[in-house]
């Protein structure tokens, strides 16, 4: 297992090259990906071309991450790459343009190893909703890797890539990071540009890095973040160095533990791992305060109204007219639409489009959509009240460790309930991250969630980094 930091040091020392690294990782992908199904697209020619360019860039100087390889979640449009979003609908879609995230990483000389599997249009918590098949958890091939950034998490955990991009609408970075024992951060809404990131729920979607360590996440976030005039929801926030506070001691840090995150429903093995981690934070000088996020339970209904509502509209562009899948035979326009969308979308996507269309429809809008927006504000206010008493919030990412493939497919609502600790962060637009803190009784990883206040990324990364200096959970690797 190697970190971004280690690889960039090796490259800087001239001990390896971008091309050599790319070849090594491509070989690993070749061997191990069939077991995991983490990649949708691998294109060695493209990767090696990027690697050669990265070596040139590094030689020119001032490109500390040039040549470091990574993988993109298949949701970021990248010119010349198939960008499928895990959907049959976009199985033939080769993007003619770069998303801002892709452009920024390209400019930094990071080398794309391939495109990572995901739940279709980022809808799912298990990565079983992909047109390209389920991704397996490298810690246990019978387990799900979490979702929707399951390909990213599995590939990082298995060492197929040292890091990857992910997106998080309701937990899609944090939960798979937790299930696969890696570190992942979902920044404050508006920090990372959404331009060219295929939209699921625009007001909730946020891209972020997934890697082994907090330090790697900070290094990558430095590349990914920044104001973008092409995204009207991008925040005009001054450029930050997210590594700047990594070494700040935790003495005096107030860690808030939300009562509602440790209540009924949390598996005892997960609780035990989290409590051990919190004890570690105390040892590092932090103090613990109990806080309350009283409307935590309301996050689930609010999220499952707002996200599908936005999705139902965002996914209307997939109509078979201009690009993507179109049914082969149809009689007239309406049938073209119906067949195209019936064939192109999977069941979870259809379920959410229908839910979304329903809650926005005439006569139901006030009862569902407006009500959900009110809850959203209440939840955001709850967090602000909590941050009056603490600097960072800690708790579980999910109530359970990774479940078995197929285990929850019959009951979508049971799967939705697994998102209870992650949804609030998206509804409030706050930054959150997952840090590996041990394993459950079934040997599957447990992640601790850290939640910061707005623009609190550096603080969270500081806490995670200090924790990782004192522990080695993030260094554990599965044997495949």
């Amino acid at each position: 297992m190697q970190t971004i930091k280690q690889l960039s040091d090796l490259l800087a020392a001239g001990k390896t090259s971008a091309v050599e690294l790319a070849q090594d990782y491509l070989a690993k992908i070749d061997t191990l990906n069939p077991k995991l199904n983490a990649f949708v697209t691998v294109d060695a020619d493209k990767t090696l071309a990027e690697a050669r360019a990265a070596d040139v860039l590094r030689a020119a100087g001032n490109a500390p991450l040039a040549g470091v390889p990574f993988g993109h979640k298949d949701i970021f449009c990248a010119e010349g790459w198939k960008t499928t979003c895990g959907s049959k609908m976009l199985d033939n879609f080769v993007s003619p343009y770069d998303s801002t995230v892709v452009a920024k990483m390209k400019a930094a000389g990071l080398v794309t190893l391939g495109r990572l599997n995901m739940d279709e249009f980022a809808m799912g918590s298990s990565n079983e909703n992909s047109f390209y098949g389920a991704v397996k958890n490298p810690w246990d091939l019978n387990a799900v890797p979490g979702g929707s950034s399951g390909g990213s998490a599995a590939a990082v955990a298995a060492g197929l890539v040292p890091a990857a991009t992910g997106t998080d609408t309701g937990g899609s970075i944090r939960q798979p990071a937790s299930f696969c024992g890696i570190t992942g951060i979902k920044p404050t809404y508006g920090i990372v540009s959404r331009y060219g990131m295929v939209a699921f729920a625009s007001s909730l979607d946020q891209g972020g890095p997934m890697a082994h360590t907090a330090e790697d996440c900070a290094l990558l976030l430095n590349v990914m973040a920044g104001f973008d005039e092409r995204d009207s929801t991008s925040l005009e926030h001054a450029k930050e160095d997210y590594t700047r506070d990594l070494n700040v001691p935790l003495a005096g840090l107030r860690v808030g533990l939300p009562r509602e995150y440790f209540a009924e429903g949390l598996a005892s093995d997960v609780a035990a791992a989290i409590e051990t981690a919190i004890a570690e934070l105390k040892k590092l000088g932090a103090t613990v305060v109990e806080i309350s996020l009283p409307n935590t339970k309301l996050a689930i209904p609010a999220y499952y109204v707002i996200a599908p509502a936005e999705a139902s509209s965002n996914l209307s562009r997939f109509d078979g007219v201009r690009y993507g899948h179109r049914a082969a035979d149809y009689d007239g326009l309406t049938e073209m639409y119906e067949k195209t969308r019936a064939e192109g979308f999977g069941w979870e996507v259809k379920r959410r489009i229908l839910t979304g269309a329903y809650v926005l429809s005439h006569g139901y809008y006030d009862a569902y959509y407006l009500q959900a927006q009110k809850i959203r504000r209440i939840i955001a206010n709850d967090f602000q009240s909590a941050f009056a008493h603490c600097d960072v919030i800690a708790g579980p990412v999910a109530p359970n460790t990774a479940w078995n493939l197929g285990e929850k497919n019959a009951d979508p609502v049971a799967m939705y309930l697994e998102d209870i600790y992650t949804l609030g962060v998206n509804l409030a637009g706050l930054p959150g991250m997952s840090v590996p803190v041990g394993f459950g009784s079934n040997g599957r990883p447990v992640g601790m969630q850290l939640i910061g206040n707005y623009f609190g990324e550096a603080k969270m990364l500081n806490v995670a980094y200090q924790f990782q200096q004192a522990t080695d959970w993030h260094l554990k690797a599965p044997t495949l």
Partner: protein
Amino acid sequence: MKWEVVIGLEVHTQLTTKSKIFSPASTAFGAEPNTQTAVVDIALPGALPVMNRAAVEKAIQFGLAIGAKVNQRSIFARKNYFYPDLPKGYQISQFELPVVEGGQITINVDGVDKVINLTRAHLEEDAGKSLHGDFQHQTGIDLNRAGTPLLEIVSEPEMRSAAEAVAYAKALYSLVTWIGICDGNMQEGSFRCDVNVSVRPEGQKEFGTRREIKNLNSFRFIEQAIKYEVQWQIGEIEDGRKIQQATILFDPDTGETRMMRSKEDAHDYRYFPDPDLPPLVISNEWLERVRSELPELPVAMQVRFQQQYGIPAYDAATLTSSKALAAYYEAAVAAGADAKLASNWIMGDISATLNREEKDIDASPVSAVALAGLIKRVMDSTINNKTAKDVLKKMWEAGATDATAADVIIERDGLKQETDTGAIEAIVDAVLAANPKAIEEYRAGKEKALNSLVGQVMKGSGGKANPAMALELLKKKVG
């Protein structure tokens, strides 16, 4: 039974911005299909809209021009429906909180002023075009127009006749072109009207059920469509049928309206605030800057023309019917033309000739300065009015931009008015000798009898005599 007609208009005005409302692509008309399309206009996955400030500014201008409330915080919403020329599957528009609310426009029908209240005006994007005729069994889609900024201007249902509706549309048209937010090119669809029509028995308070005539792009069609629709609705009711709410189309070839979709087929647009666009916030500074830069509006200009130039209200209204005409008038006066004479010439010969040649004042071959040069020669009696008309004709044909254009023609063609009393006296004597009867009548008290003699003197002088001088001489000799 007597019926009252109730009409309200929704007008889509294309705003004259260089780029689209949410994308950097050009809005120019007439390019090859699908060549003016950015990722936003094709609705590629991941594409995001970015508000064009110029479009907002034009909406503010409109709001201020009609005395409306400009909402300093307004919301963009998505209007969801599927159609091939609507690439995102939704149109970005404004629904609950539009940028402009209220405002008034004054119309004049048969000399009577009437104030029409506006409900709102909101920003939205245009759709692309479906080309049904160009391919066999296929429909072509051109997305060049997709994303063109529109200001949809909605009136209250306060018009009571086709004539009022047309007057309103024309007044609105004149205003949006005056303040320069719309190019007014109706053939290219820059100004499109949806007309809501209903009828009710005179004296009834409740509105009748309305039908909406879509997409009328000429004032004549508006009038024809309303007239036909009103008769149709009255006919239906009188035959005992009820009017069903519907969207209808007007066919200019047959002059009839026909059903497009009934209320039952109406879409549920599932409006909701667009999460890709934060609320549109207009600062005080922005609002005040636009206010200070707003051109003088027609109504204010009419008042000023009456005061500054001492011309009648009718003249002032006519001269301010377009910004270009008003500018032409002011330029002529500034160049030394008498204010009332300039008004007469512009409303008379100039407008008549322009109309005949289907030209705008901008395309007038005689410039305001050249016209002033001509009028000055009338003012100083170098030529008389009749000669001046001939000179103008010659100036028109040759094109005249200089202040001296009239002088050159007068000199060249020897048209200078005869002011030599001796020369005119000889003609007067000859005319008097040939018309003893007229002299008798004049002496008997019929003042007008000499007027015909003036004409003969003019004729005898080849048009060059000064008519006033001729009359004076005639009176002297006869009296």
